[in-house]
């Protein structure tokens, strides 16, 4: 039988220390994990206790500050949303014009500078899409926070000055909400179409529900790797944010009477995100 020569490999999983020739005991790592867990539990208890002490002295002030802030937003929200829509419109147009200029420069340039313009185009196109995505969320949040919690408590009688003012205010707010959401969608579609013109391999209709799937399928290996890495990082960070949101909603229930609904909502998002990731991973391992 032919002997096969085993190649030396840069095995990072070797557990023998060459200097001392001693085997690293894996049990030390397990002990450290449990110790860290106990330490984090203690730290959480200390933070929770400190927060409770602070809120017991200043809870009333924080509750009244919260009410005052919401009241202020209900009065002036339409102007904040309007300003945000104007900023996004200007920024969106500027980014689109800049992208077209970068693409033109890339095509007109020689080797080394073409690479530089291409990198800038990739950066600015991704920035434009990120701005569009985060803007739509911001507009919706700001807009709905500016709506009164109960419309029947608001004077909407258009025969009175106050009623007419409120009526126009909330119609304008609704128009800005819808208009702003449509605007960011148009911005995102324009940028994606420009990217597809520059690189015809990119597939997918941005207005279609299957756009993400088709876009991913048309990406090459590094683009997929970048997307996967970004997705995993986003997932891990969202898990931390959900934990913070859960703590905030529990405090909100205890101190500001926000009720159970926010806790249930955050909990459902947490469970869905974790289960979704786990199931997808199991499917991925199964398909190998």
């Amino acid at each position: 039988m032919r002997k096969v020569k085993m190649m030396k490999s840069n095995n990072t999983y070797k557990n023998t220390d060459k200097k001392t020739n001693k085997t690293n005991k894996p049990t030390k790592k397990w002990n450290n994990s449990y110790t860290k867990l106990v330490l984090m539990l203690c730290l959480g208890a200390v933070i929770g206790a400190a927060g409770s002490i602070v809120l017991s002295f200043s809870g009333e002030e924080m509750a009244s500050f919260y009410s005052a802030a919401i009241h202020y937003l209900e009065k002036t929200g339409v102007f904040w949303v309007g300003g945000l829509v104007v900023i996004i419109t200007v920024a969106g147009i500027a980014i689109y014009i800049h992208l077209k200029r970068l693409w033109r420069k890339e095509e007109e340039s020689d080797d080394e500078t073409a690479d530089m313009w291409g990198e800038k185009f990739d950066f600015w196109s991704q920035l434009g899409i990120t701005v569009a995505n985060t803007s739509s969320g911001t507009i919706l949040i700001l807009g709905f926070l500016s709506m009164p919690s109960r419309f029947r408590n608001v004077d909407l009688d258009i025969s009175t000055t106050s009623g007419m003012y409120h009526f126009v205010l909330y119609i304008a707010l609704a128009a800005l909400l819808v208009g702003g959401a449509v605007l960011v969608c148009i911005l995102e579609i324009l940028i994606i179409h420009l990217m597809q013109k520059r690189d015809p391999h990119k597939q997918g209709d941005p207005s279609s529900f299957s756009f993400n799937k088709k876009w991913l399928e048309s990406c090459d290996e590094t683009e997929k790797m970048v997307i996967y890495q970004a997705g995993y990082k986003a997932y891990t960070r969202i898990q931390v944010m959900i934990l913070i949101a859960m703590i905030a909603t529990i405090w909100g229930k205890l101190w500001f009477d926000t009720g159970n609904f926010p806790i249930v909502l955050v909990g459902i998002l947490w469970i869905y995100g974790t289960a979704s990731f786990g199931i997808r991973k199991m499917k991925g391992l199964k398909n190998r």
Partner: protein
Amino acid sequence: MPLINHLKEHRARLGVNQSELGKMADVSRQTISLIERGDYSPSVTLALKLAKIFQVQVEDIFVYEEGEDDEE
């Protein structure tokens, strides 16, 4: 990274930019750029495609050099 590549030299010899090479290899300009910088190791398929484009062997473009610790 133990993978050394001479992609940039071969691309210069062919007289194409990253975008053009990407189109020839059916990948994006970003992929070519990442490979040249050493930030990404290409798949076997892509390495073979690039070797075919340059009409050389894969080992002429990508060289695997083990670290000094492994030579002991």
